[in-house]
């Protein structure tokens, strides 16, 4: 039994006024206090009969035990008195409101003492034990204690006491769980410690403003790295508080200020409060950050946010952050707030959380022209991590825009640049010097690649050209970039160029792009496809140049043992008929070109054959060549090939080197050619013999004729268009070399050319044909060429030839023959020109 009860309280108990049930309560109390040997106890024991009586702990009883203000006059005694309550409290015998209020007065008064060294730890332990039991009790004693604690804690005028209580509350787990309130009907209700209207009513006079004000004041207070009031209050945070902030944005702003102070001075994060959520899932404090111009503190605070907050509520924050970064010409970039904290907002993030504005921001801050030189590197590495090293998306990420996830497109990126720079290409050029290792360039490459065919609309023609050169320069200057960067970007460059380079004919450019494959193995496929598309494109008309290119690249294909020019086999195996058709449609003599083509193809076939024992790959090349030859020769018109080409083919196919033999179709093909040759030869031979025969005949008749009509004796005036004179003319044309030129005769017929033509067309002895042939021969005679003494004769015969032949079915072949001959180089320029002229006249 504690001394204080023994000496001061029990002896002074006035039991007279008590009901029996109350006396029974006192009796029980005394037993609990182990005061059975006291007079009071004995007195009750002897005088009272408790049978049938229920114990009743009334307020009066409580006051008898607990209400002894005199005991508090001496601090030590007061403490002893209070701690002596423990056995009773443990049994659920709680003081009444009046006694507790007295206790609270005592505690308030002695707060200073409790913190002194005179106050032993053991006693403190006991005292707080009492407070704890009281605070947690479901009695009217609970609320005053809780009110006392909260009032003191929130009163930072006496910061030491506040801190003292905070620490003890934490230590003894006070102000948590529930608190009990006596209702008007004297019943006790318990409420959880959470900030709601009841809480405000009980502890802050129903005044939210008051609470918020004190709350914000208290937040930053406390010792660094130790628990503080915040830790007591954390469980109290509620959606009611959140709603209050939502309705009162200014208060929310104040709260963020308090949190910033707490973060800066106490170095403590306030996650729970910052992430306070309303019932609707809104974050009022994050909202508060969204609606203001930022300072460094906001950056710090934002950095501590939970990244799982819905993106919609973070969007504005990111934008404020970006604005903060470029504010004051980038002064903030040098601040600690950025280097130690702000940087994390970007570095520990992914692109799809960030606003679309990041792209123009990056462009501005890292471009050599507009950027902040010392920081471009920082941002380049930040953004390259976000945009280039993240494999979770394809070329470009989705980003945030107007509260939505938006897929970034290449067109968007390019238009963004165009918005702030009138000349996009100039903007690119400044970057070009940095080469591929500059992440900005890598990003641009992605954008260009992503834009794809839209590039042709985004850039006018002359800029497309510049753009191609820009990309090529980047690619070819990439030797100093790392292998990883090359592997990623060279294929993209090739792809982008594939979209840009769609014009036909510029094979220098095509080759330059195709050659990107040598820069990185990853680009090989793209580049080869690109080259194939340009070299073998059935949608475009064939040209001689392309055909020539195919067979030039056949060399590369062969020498590299099929590693280079990989589309060549496709050209060989699919384009043979197309080539033949192309040549079939050419009016000009293509024999020379075809001869070279066939020779080249055969020479490679031969090489392949001779090497196929050492490397079986050569077998496939020669097989492809054979496919080409079958297709090509099968469709090509017989007369297109020169005789020597056919001979060559024939000889090759029959030679020992060739071993076409396995290929019957090809064999037959070549056979049919040689058959054709034989037939033509036979026909020519026949013609020749006929001609010989005729010639002999004619020479005889010519002799006669000469005799009959001696050249000198032809009477010009007597000439008329009849068989006699026509034959005389023909004879002269055939024999002028020996018999001399009958220019007058020729001239006569030249003036009567129409008559001659009519006469010949009615003739059925074949004179017309002979005239054509004979005149043709005179054309080719160098003795009759322009500038020679016999020029007149030549000119006349030329004129007649044109008139006779033009419009006939032989005109075309004559013209072609003349063209070929004039280009053969066998004749001097004047004659060659004259021949060309004739050919032109025939075709006219």
């Amino acid at each position, binding site marked *: 039994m504690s001394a204080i009860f023994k000496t001061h309280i029990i002896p002074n108990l006035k039991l007279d006024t008590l009901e029996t049930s109350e006396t029974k309560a006192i009796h029980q109390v005394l037993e609990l206090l182990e005061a059975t040997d006291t007079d009071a106890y004995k007195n009750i024991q002897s005088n009272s009969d408790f049978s049938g009586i229920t114990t009743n702990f009334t307020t009066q009883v409580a006051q008898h035990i607990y209400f002894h203000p005199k005991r508090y006059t001496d601090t030590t005694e007061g403490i002893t008195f209070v701690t002596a309550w423990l056995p009773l409290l443990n049994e659920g015998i709680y003081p009444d409101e009046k006694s507790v209020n007295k206790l609270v007065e005592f505690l308030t008064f002695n707060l200073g003492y409790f913190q002194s060294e005179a106050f032993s730890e053991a006693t403190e332990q006991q005292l707080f034990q009492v407070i704890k039991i009281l605070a947690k009790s479901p009695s009217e004693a609970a609320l005053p204690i809780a009110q006392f604690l909260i009032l003191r804690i929130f009163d930072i005028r006496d910061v030491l006491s506040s801190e003292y209580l905070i620490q003890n509350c934490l230590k003894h787990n006070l102000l948590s769980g529930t608190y009990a309130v006596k209702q008007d009907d004297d019943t006790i209700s318990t409420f959880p410690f959470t900030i709601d209207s009841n809480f405000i009513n009980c502890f802050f006079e129903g005044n939210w403003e008051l609470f918020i004000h004190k709350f914000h004041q208290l937040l930053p207070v406390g010792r660094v790295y130790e628990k503080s009031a915040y830790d007591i209050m954390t469980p109290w945070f509620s959606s009611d508080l959140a709603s209050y902030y939502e309705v009162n944005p200014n208060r929310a702003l104040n709260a963020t200020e308090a949190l910033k102070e707490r973060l800066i001075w106490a170095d403590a994060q306030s996650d729970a409060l910052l992430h306070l959520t309303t019932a609707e899932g809104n974050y009022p404090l994050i909202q508060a950050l969204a609606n203001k111009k930022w300072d460094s503190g906001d950056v710090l605070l934002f950095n501590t946010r939970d990244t799982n907050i819905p993106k919609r509520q973070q969007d504005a924050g990111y934008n404020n952050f970006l604005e903060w970064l470029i504010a004051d010409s980038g002064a903030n970039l040098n601040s600690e707030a950025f280097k130690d904290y702000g940087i994390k907002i970007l570095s520990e993030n992914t692109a799809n959380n960030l606003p679309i504005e990041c792209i123009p921001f990056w462009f501005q801050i890292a471009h050599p022209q507009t950027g902040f030189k010392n920081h471009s590197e920082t941002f380049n590495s930040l953004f390259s991590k976000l945009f280039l090293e993240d494999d979770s998306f394809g070329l470009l990420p989705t980003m945030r825009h107007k509260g939505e996830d938006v897929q970034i497109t290449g067109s968007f990126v390019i238009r963004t640049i165009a918005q702030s720079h009138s000349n996009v290409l100039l903007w690119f050029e400044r970057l070009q010097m940095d080469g591929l290792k500059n992440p900005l360039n890598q990003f641009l490459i992605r954008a260009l690649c992503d834009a794809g065919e839209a590039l042709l609309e985004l850039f006018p023609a002359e800029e497309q050209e510049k753009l191609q050169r820009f990309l090529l320069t980047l690619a*070819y200057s990439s030797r100093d970039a790392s292998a990883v960067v090359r592997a990623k970007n060279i294929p993209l460059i090739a792809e982008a160029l594939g979209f840009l380079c769609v014009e036909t004919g510029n094979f220098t450019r095509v*080759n*330059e792009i*195709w*050659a*990107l*494959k*040598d*820069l990185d193995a990853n680009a090989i496929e793209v580049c080869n496809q690109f080259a194939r598309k340009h070299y073998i494109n059935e949608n475009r008309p064939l040209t001689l140049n392309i055909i020539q290119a195919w067979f*030039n690249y056949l*060399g*590369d294909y*062969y*020498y*590299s*043992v099929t*590693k*280079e*020019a990989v589309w060549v086999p496709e050209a060989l195996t699919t384009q043979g008929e197309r080539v033949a058709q192309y040549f079939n449609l050419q009016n000009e003599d293509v024999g020379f070109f075809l001869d070279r083509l066939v020779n080249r193809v055969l020479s490679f076939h031969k*090489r392949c054959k001779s*090497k196929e024992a050492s490397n079986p790959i050569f077998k496939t090349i020669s097989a492809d060549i054979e496919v080409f030859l079958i297709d090509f020769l099968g469709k090509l018109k017989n007369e297109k090939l020169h005789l020597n080409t056919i001979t060559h083919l024939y000889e090759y196919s029959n030679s020992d080197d060739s071993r076409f033999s396995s290929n019957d179709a090809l064999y037959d093909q070549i056979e049919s050619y040689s058959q054709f040759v034989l037939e033509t030869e036979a026909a020519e031979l026949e013609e020749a013999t006929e001609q010989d025969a005729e010639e002999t005949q004619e020479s005889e008749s010519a002799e006669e004729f000469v005799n009959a009509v001696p050249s000198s004796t032809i009477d010009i005036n007597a000439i008329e268009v009849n068989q006699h004179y026509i034959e005389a003319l023909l004879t002269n044309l055939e024999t002028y070399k020996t018999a001399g030129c009958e220019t007058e005769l020729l001239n006569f017929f030249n003036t009567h050319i129409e008559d001659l033509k009519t006469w010949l067309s009615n003739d059925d002895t074949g004179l017309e044909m002979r005239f054509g042939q004979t005149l043709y021969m005179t054309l080719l005679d160098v003795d009759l060429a322009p500038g020679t003494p016999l020029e007149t004769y030549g000119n006349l015969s030329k004129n007649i030839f044109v008139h006779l032949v033009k419009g006939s079915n032989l005109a075309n072949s004559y013209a072609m023959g003349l063209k070929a001959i004039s280009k053969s180089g066998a004749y001097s320029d004047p004659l060659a020109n004259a021949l060309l002229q004739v050919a032109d006249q025939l075709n006219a």
Partner: protein
Amino acid sequence: MTQDITPKIQDQLNLSALILKKNHKQANLSSWSGFNLEDKKHVKQAERLLTILGIKSGLHLRNSLQHYESGLMVSQAFEKLAAEFRNDTTETFEAKYRALNNPQTQNTYKTVWKYRFSLKNQKLRGYEIAMYIFQMRLGLVLGFITTEEMILRLEEVNTTIKSTFSSWGEFHRNVCIGDEYVLGVTEQDVSTFPNMSTLWDHYQRLHIEHAEWFKNWNK
């Protein structure tokens, strides 16, 4: 995979010895490329030479080879002019020559005039093939080509060149003429290029240092 250099391949590679020496004095003529791949300076020099020649990749290299092989690079232009000059008299030629005001073209005209008959058949094939092989060796330094492909190509051009010329002397003379035709007279000003040697210097040195290589014209 790098293949061994057989005496036959060495003989074929030697067709480019003169040009290689001219462009890279420290060249090791008995190696595939002539350049020391371990030596950064050597690689840099090869890179530089390729850049001058406009060769940025294997494709560029092969296109260039194709041009040299077909005569498109030098011989065709040479022959066109030579054919014209063969019909000219001394006077008509001089008239044409005087009408020029570009010293480089004048040099070209002079060279062509001089050899218009003697090189009617050979043209500048020797020079072209020497360049062809030289460029392959350069390409090898940067990995644009493999030795396997080189062997195939060497074989072809070797056949061509051995049947076009009849001796090392004749061949090398053609290389020198070609060099002069393309680059102009190569009398370097020793005062400004103290380390430069003329092609003629290299020619002499080559025949002294590797006399045994250039004795037999192995067909």
